[in-house]
């Protein structure tokens, strides 16, 4: 049951634009601290380019480590956008409204971060033009389209383009609101971006149709992006732990799990940071937690299926790999932590309405899920490589260097910084969606109780 407080349009405007037209007290401090960390990270990246990848803890055969784990992690987070804005939009879930923009920009910024990681990870970043662009006209050698690593930038690029368009279409009415409330240079900026929005019925119709079309067009990306990322691993016949046909759906569902959790984290932070208590309400956390419970349970099923499929063949190297992954210190501790944080602690918590509507508990449980999901990728990538073949002679372990840890930390600072900068220019909660839901909502008298409902006009 949705408990809603009726708010006026003026109130909506003044509260939701408080991050854009005014500056919260903490904002300048946080932005400067994050900028410092981000700049240090960029500096370290150049140090790595100068000296070589020896600064990482990678070895032979553990050629992929923290960087690729973090790459997969951020691509996973990006699934928030497509799940919330596209699928929930097409299924007309009312509670998605305040969340859509946050999810969408989380998608865009996490994709931008994910795209950086293969560059950081590559041995010769400055030569990457060979890889991303069909550049080598003179010799007639094109990028290898059979390689999932080449499909990655294409899939992510498509997703990024689609999400950006989607975000922009949804921003136009709010940009017009901002245009009417600013002066000077900022007004000019918003005027150009608002593209002459006056809010007449034809413009509204086109905006809605555009949004729905983009959602529908982006649906295939829901499947494709993380499937392709999973093929990075699944096509390697040499690595027992990776060469599995279940990887594509397993990764997709895991991505939704971590992406939607990240949206919950972000919503809690938005509620605390900007005080949007009347707009991001416990009922939204409740709905997301219900969705997460289903997704997480499906994901757990895939996790065990993956284990089952791998052990079914009784291959000696595969058993050696699983033995290390699940039973050997320190991997067993990581595996336990992964199960606890990915499912065992948060999901039973979400079964209780008291938890689902408690913002602090939802915040911590969603952070927990993402720790678990990061560990999941780590536990797939690293043990798989270090127990690669029957040649026990070449088995090797992996300890990430502080360099890699810093770059992981950098990625979080980078995404947060981008979000904060975005919040200064654009509203994080869509104003028009909020007002639209206000228009649609009504209450019906059933017996003596007033039941809040949503009325929608049907298309003729």
């Amino acid at each position: 049951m949705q408990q809603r407080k009726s708010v006026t349009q003026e109130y909506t405007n003044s509260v939701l634009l408080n991050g854009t037209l005014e500056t919260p007290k903490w904002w300048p401090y946080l932005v400067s601290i994050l900028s410092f960390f981000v700049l240090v990270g960029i500096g370290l990246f150049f140090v790595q380019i100068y000296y070589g990848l020896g600064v990482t803890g990678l070895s032979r055969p553990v050629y992929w480590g923290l960087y690729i784990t973090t790459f997969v992690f951020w691509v996973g987070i990006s699934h928030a956008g497509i799940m919330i804005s596209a699928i929930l939009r097409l299924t007309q879930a009312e509670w998605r409204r305040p969340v859509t923009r946050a999810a969408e920009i989380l998608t865009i910024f996490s994709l931008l971060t994910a795209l950086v990681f293969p560059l950081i990870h590559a041995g010769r970043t400055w030569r990457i033009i060979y890889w991303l662009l069909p550049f080598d006209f003179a010799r007639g050698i094109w990028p290898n389209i059979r390689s999932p690593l080449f499909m990655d930038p294409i899939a992510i690029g498509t997703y990024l383009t689609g999400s950006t368009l989607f975000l922009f279409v949804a921003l136009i009415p709010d940009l017009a609101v901002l245009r009417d409330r600013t002066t000077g240079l900022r007004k000019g900026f918003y005027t150009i971006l608002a593209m002459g929005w006056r809010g007449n019925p034809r413009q509204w119709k086109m905006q809605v149709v555009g949004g729905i079309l983009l959602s529908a067009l982006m649906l295939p990306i829901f499947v494709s992006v993380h499937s392709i990322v999973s093929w990075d691993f699944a096509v390697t016949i040499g690595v027992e732990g990776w060469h599995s046909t279940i990887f594509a759906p397993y990764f997709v569902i895991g991505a939704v799990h971590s992406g939607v959790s990240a949206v919950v984290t972000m919503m809690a932070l938005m509620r605390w940071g900007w005080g949007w208590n009347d707009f991001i309400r416990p009922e939204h956390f409740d709905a997301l937690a219900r969705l997460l419970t289903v997704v997480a349970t499906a994901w757990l099923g895939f996790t065990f299926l993956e284990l089952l499929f791998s052990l079914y063949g009784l291959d000696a190297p595969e058993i050696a790999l699983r033995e290390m992954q699940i039973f050997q210190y320190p991997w067993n501790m990581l595996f336990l932590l992964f199960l606890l944080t990915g499912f065992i602690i948060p999901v039973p918590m979400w079964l209780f309405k008291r938890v689902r509507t408690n913002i602090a508990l939802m915040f911590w449980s969603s952070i927990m899920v993402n720790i678990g999901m990061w560990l999941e990728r780590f536990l797939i990538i690293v043990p798989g490589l270090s127990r690669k073949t029957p040649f026990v002679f070449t088995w090797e372990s992996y300890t990430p260097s502080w360099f890699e840890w810093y770059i992981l930390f950098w990625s979080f600072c980078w995404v947060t910084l981008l979000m904060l900068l975005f919040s200064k220019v654009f509203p994080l909660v869509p104003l028009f969606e909020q007002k639209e839901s206000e228009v649609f909502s009504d209450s019906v008298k059933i017996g003596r109780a007033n039941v809040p409902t949503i009325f929608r006009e049907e298309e003729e």
Partner: protein
Amino acid sequence: MVIENKDRNWGMVIDTDKCTGCNGCVIACQVENNVPLNDQNKFERGRVMSWMRVERYWEGEFPEVKARFIPIPCQHCANAPCEPVCPVYATYHNNEGMNIQVYNRCVGTRYCANGCPYIVRFFNYWEPIWPEEMRNHLNPDVTVRSRGIMEKCSFCIQRIRRGARKAKEENRELEDGEITTACQDACSTQAITFGDLNDPESKVSKLSKDDRSYTLMPHLNTDPNVIYLASIKENKEEFQEEKANSHD
């Protein structure tokens, strides 16, 4: 001058029965191909570069222990798993049955190394450094690889090209055994044989049809051009039993 010959299929036969585990092939390869030197730190970090490595396995329980050696270079698979995964075609198959690494194109994604089930691809984590007195000892026919790229056994392609060019200048066909690899030259027990697998008369193709011949991890269907000869057991029954029991 085009000296590639499509009729050739270079291959190697390694007789593990003859291998004494002396690591001579490893050193010869290191010198011939300008492979960076390995120091203690590299061993500890698991970043050893050796295009040819001799793996040592113990067989039996103490005191009845036997050391078994197997030298493993790049297998030059006909169905190489490293090739399709490279996004920039830095590794490809040439017309002479060899798997080629193009240093100039390589961007260092290390994906090929993950694809390779034999772990014979090596990554330059640092810029290679030789001691001052050794800098003039580098082989001028072989590129010195910079940091950030992959490298691996090339079947001593510089020797193949030199031999083929010489034969062409002298207007004759290449003879079997004319081209040798560095590891082969260094092997004191002549466990390594190199030659054209497409020539039915060559020593390698005869050896490759030996009863003892096998390839590494045939279940992966990589079809390697490096063929091994099993070590000889004291009694024949034991060997046949082992062969029947093997998964492959």
